[in-house]
């Protein structure tokens, strides 16, 4: 197998911007919708996904020359499941509060498509450095997206950010919208943010067609 493909730096940058797992690939929707009603929960989820993604990419990249085409998905799943179980146990042992809050969503990282997609697209084909760069980039891209969604939801829905009070509800004048921390708030926020990010990218591309401007666009976080 040849190790041709994007370089480590390209892989890293793509994960944050042009191939952002949430806003560009629309992967990992389950945690993006389910655990983003608090910033703290979303960031714990992002950290757990990063741990699993980096470890899985390293192992798969090291094993890439031994993989049989028809057994590769089995190897990916085995690797991912192992690291998810480790992450679940680590959370339960060291941050029991967050582990209780995230409940079943930690074991569900096993079926998070971001990870298996990176194993398939990058780690199974490229060496260890591009695989690590890819995992880091995708993890940061995932964390930035979860941060954006959860910030909007926690501030509008609860008047707080990371547990700190941003504003207090004044009955009759301005009250926090509890719908934002309920499931519909997740769909509303994600849909609007997706639209906003893609609109910014499209707008940035318009003046000069040949200029890849996706990186700048992905950092444009909505206020």
């Amino acid at each position, binding site marked *: 197998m040849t190790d041709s493909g994007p370089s480590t730096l390209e892989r890293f940058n793509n994960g944050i911007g042009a191939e952002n797992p949430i806003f560009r690939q629309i992967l990992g929707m389950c945690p993006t919708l389910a655990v983003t009603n608090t910033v703290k929960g979303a960031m714990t989820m992002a950290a757990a996904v990063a741990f699993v993604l980096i470890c899985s990419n390293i192992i798969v990249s090291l094993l890439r020359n031994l993989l049989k085409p028809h057994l590769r998905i089995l190897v990916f799943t085995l690797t991912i499941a192992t690291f998810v179980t480790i992450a679940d146990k680590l959370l339960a*042992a060291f941050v029991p509060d967050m582990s209780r809050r995230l*409940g079943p969503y930690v074991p569900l990282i096993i079926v998070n498509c971001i990870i298996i997609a990176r194993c398939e697209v990058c780690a199974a084909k490229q060496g260890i450095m591009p695989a690590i760069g890819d995992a880091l980039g995708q993890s940061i891209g995932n964390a930035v997206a979860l941060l954006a969604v959860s910030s909007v939801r926690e501030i509008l829905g609860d008047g707080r950010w990371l547990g700190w009070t941003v504003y207090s509800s004044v009955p009759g004048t301005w009250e926090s919208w*509890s719908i934002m921390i309920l499931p519909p708030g997740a769909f509303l926020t994600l849909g609007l943010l997706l639209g906003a990010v893609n609109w910014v990218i499209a707008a940035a591309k318009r003046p000069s067609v040949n200029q890849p401007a996706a990186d700048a666009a992905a950092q444009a976080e909505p206020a």
Partner: protein
Amino acid sequence: MKENYLKQSWLVIVLALVFGVALAFVQTSLASRIEQNKLDLTLKQIPALVPGAAGGRQETISGKTVFQALDKSGRQVGWVVKGSGLGFADVIELLVGLNNDTDRITGMYVLDQKETPGLGNKIGEEAFSGQFAGKSSARPLVVVKGSASAGNQVAAISGATISSQSVTDIVNKTVQDIRPLLAGKSKRD
């Protein structure tokens, strides 16, 4: 053919073994800590559940795990019992505090719940859970809408009658089940 299969699948078999050993190692090194976290969560609540309690001790009575609530000098001041049952969304786990004679509920704390945020999850808030303290355990508690008037009534959370009812049912069942087991077991000397 047999050799062919092994040639194809040896990597999966080896990985499964290696990963299995790794997980066994993680489990053995973290299991006691995880158990301790769960126990701490319960023990931490005991002072809030039983007046005068400073800590607690786990004990098994007739196959059931209960917690003795102890004051600073180690005298027993009550019991804490775990209960669980189905809520509106998922299983609700809670703790009930009882006095030494088990004829009075001294407190209630929701350990784990996945009720609707903003509505049902108010079962964990003092305004609702505080109502259980001081109730007699001789009669089952009854949920009422609006405000509670009689001694054995609990006011439902508006918009979350099912969650309120579930919690009250779990408390009733937990108390009924445990009272006969605890009769005369308090060590008050």
